[in-house]
């Protein structure tokens, strides 16, 4: 196996082991319904995490993701319910707004040379604040097109549903993987994360690429916001609080290095599924108090990363530079 694919494989193996263990305990977890739910329930997180993967591979971080989801949800809802726009038009508008927003953040990061952490933190405040200035209440969306879109699904035998948004997430993951691993843009992203100085000297258009990366992340966050609004048929300023942390964890659990330069889009998919599995497991268990829920999530997280390291170490018996910690 190619050395670079090992973390991905390790994560996938862990997911399978964990899933098998859960099914042994709760046989009903092996149903099309649960599998369908995995996709539908994590669609918005997955889509946002694809964008986050690019940002992290490039050596940055985007804390504004959750807030952008909340903001776009509110904007879509307001455009449709208050101003009577057609949903498709509303989608175009919010994606455009998000693209500008991301471009502005990327430009600030590149030209002002401020760490992405700060810029996107300001972006997070701005988006979340903007949403609550528009409305503090949650705004329901009642539009037949919306209803139709959120009812769009393939019913599977056994009560499962492959929803539109679940499939959309898969499509985004595949597209993201192609973009990251098969295009010049993708190689620029890795180059920036590997060594920005070298990247510049090798002729990578650093400014353009940086702007594009944050644009991509914001646009995907906005798409995730649209998905979230489809999921809940509403826009709510407090929606998706903290999703950026979930997205970052999914990315990192998926084998991407937070220091940049290494990672896989499909690893993030496994990461998202793994996080979803933990939640589903806890729901199926149903005996944990609020606090034990948190403790158990922490413990499972810990077990996953340790397991991942063990599998990785076992499959790479040669030397391993301490710098390149896996998880």
């Amino acid at each position, binding site marked *: 196996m*190619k050395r670079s694919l090992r973390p991905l494989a390790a994560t996938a193996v862990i997911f399978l082991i964990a899933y098998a263990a859960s099914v042994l305990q709760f046989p009903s977890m092996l149903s099309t319904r649960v599998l369908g739910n995995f996709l539908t329930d994590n669609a918005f997180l997955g889509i946002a995490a694809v964008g986050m993967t690019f940002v992290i591979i490039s050596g940055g971080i985007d804390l504004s993701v959750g807030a952008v989801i909340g903001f776009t949800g509110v904007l879509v809802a307001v455009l449709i319910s208050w101003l009577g726009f057609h949903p498709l038009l509303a989608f175009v508008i919010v994606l455009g707004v998000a693209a500008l927003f991301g471009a502005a953040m990327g430009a600030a990061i590149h030209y002002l040379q401020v760490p992405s952490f700060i810029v996107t933190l300001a972006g997070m405040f701005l988006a979340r604040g903007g949403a609550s200035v528009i409305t503090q209440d949650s705004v329901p969306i009642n539009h037949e097109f919306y209803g139709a879109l959120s009812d769009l699904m393939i019913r599977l035998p056994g009560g499962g549903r492959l929803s539109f948004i679940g499939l959309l997430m898969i499509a985004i993951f595949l597209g993201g993987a192609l973009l990251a691993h098969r*295009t010049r843009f993708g190689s620029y992203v890795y*180059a920036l*994360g590997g*060594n920005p100085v070298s990247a510049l000297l090798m002729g990578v258009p650093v400014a353009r690429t940086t702007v594009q990366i944050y644009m991509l992340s914001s646009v995907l966050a906005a798409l995730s916001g649209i998905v979230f609004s489809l999921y809940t048929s509403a826009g709510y300023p407090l929606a998706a609080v903290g999703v950026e942390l979930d997205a970052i964890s999914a990315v990192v659990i998926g084998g991407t290095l937070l220091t940049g*330069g290494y990672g896989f889009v499909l690893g993030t998919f496994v990461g998202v599924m793994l996080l979803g599995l933990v939640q589903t497991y806890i729901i199926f268990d149903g005996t944990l108090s609020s606090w034990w829920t948190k403790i158990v999530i922490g413990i499972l997280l810990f077990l996953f990363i340790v397991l991942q390291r063990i599998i990785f170490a076992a499959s790479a018996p040669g030397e391993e530079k301490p710098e390149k910690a896996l998880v």
Partner: protein
Amino acid sequence: MADTHYVLEARGIMKIFGNHVALDNIDFGLKAGEVHALLGENGAGKSTLIKILTGAYQPDGGGIYVDGAQVSLDNPLHAQTFGIGTVYQEVNLLPNRSVAENLFLGHQPLRFGFVNFRKMEADARVILKNYDLNIDPSSELGSHSVAVQQIVAIARAVQLSGKVLILDEPTASLDRNEVERLFEVVLGLKARGLAIIFITHFLDQVFAISDRVTVLRNGKLIETRALDALSRTDVVRLMLGKDIAFSGATDVEPSEAPNEVLLEFKGYGRKRSVLPFDLTIHKGEVVGVAGLLGSGRTEVARIMFGADPADQGTVRVNGQPTAIRKATDAIKHGFGFCPEDRKAEGILGDLSVRENIVIALQGKLGWFKALNRDEQMEIAGRFGESMDIRAASLDMPVKLLSGGNQQKVILSRWLATDPAFLILDEPTRGIDVGAHAEIVRTINRLRDEGMAMLVISSELDEVVAYSSRIVVMRDREMVAELRGKNINPGVIVQAIANNPDEAVA
């Protein structure tokens, strides 16, 4: 316009860092079909001029002309569009990506808008073949030695150069064969009419392929001249502003008087890295290590120092059996180690020159016996003086120093710890003639003072100049040990080449 046609020209270039004038009114012209050597001491401003010529830095004055037309190069990408390919001094590639991608980044062959990996890797294999490099193009660049990376950088630049090829110390840490290979490529390009800028500290190489030389000193242009009118001494005088006494490769006087044994390695080795070897090192002895690129010299050094711990064999220090599992163990026994990969494992880029010099000594002293600022200044100043480190200030970040000066800083770092056993992996890499002679002198002096050393160098003259003994590596194995008065580069080459089973690559 001047009567000669310059493909690339710089007129009146100024570059000022803070209040340090790095380039002062430099004129430089490059003709098609010439190899133009750019020479000067460490810190003279060669790399800075290159960076300005390729858009990596913006000049503070003066202009750049391509084919007589003034251009403003915003970034290296812009320079590439004019057909200028560059190898910068420190290998500036992406260790996290594959060899093929490093060769083609920005120019990957596409199919339906997507990168065609199969073609890219096939092309890469063909290109690498020109350099006798038989590596997997899909392997991660960072998994290869500095020398391999340097070849990849050269290959990339050659690919990109339609008009001008700039090589900033491409041959540091390449072995003879590789250098010859490179020269073949360069001469081929020259014949095709490319203009080539070549920076090196090896005068032999300058004379081997260059047509003209330009010499810089302290940021000022000294002279541009045709090479055939110059002798080695002339060039050195131009560079240093004075003559130096050349310490030839002759005065090896291995003290046959058996000194005390300092180190005894028995069956020492590491799986997948170096086959077990036996080596005894005495006090006051310099053991040179020779071998081809990739023969495992660096690995031997790392195992001895515990950077990659040995997994078999034993080591005795002063007769006492001991275990060296990590660098701190080795340092406790008075070891020191100048690694080969200066950028990744040597310098602490953002820390000051002063801090870089005292760090190992401080590490030895521990957390609580801190050297105060004055003591640090004193130590750093002392070595700055004796090693002739050219820095605007001892408080400037070491990454802003010229490459050769960084090397001196790392050497100073270990000398400051007063080691009993010093491992030097390519210590003269990127060091100018003056300093080179100085380092050879230093090694000889330290040996006479009783220090034991293991020195790896691709420059055989140099190895001969200071070694008491030379071990030869081939295919990760110590295959020969040469001693006695009659060692010379020829003998070493023979020992290296004396391959029982020929033909692998």
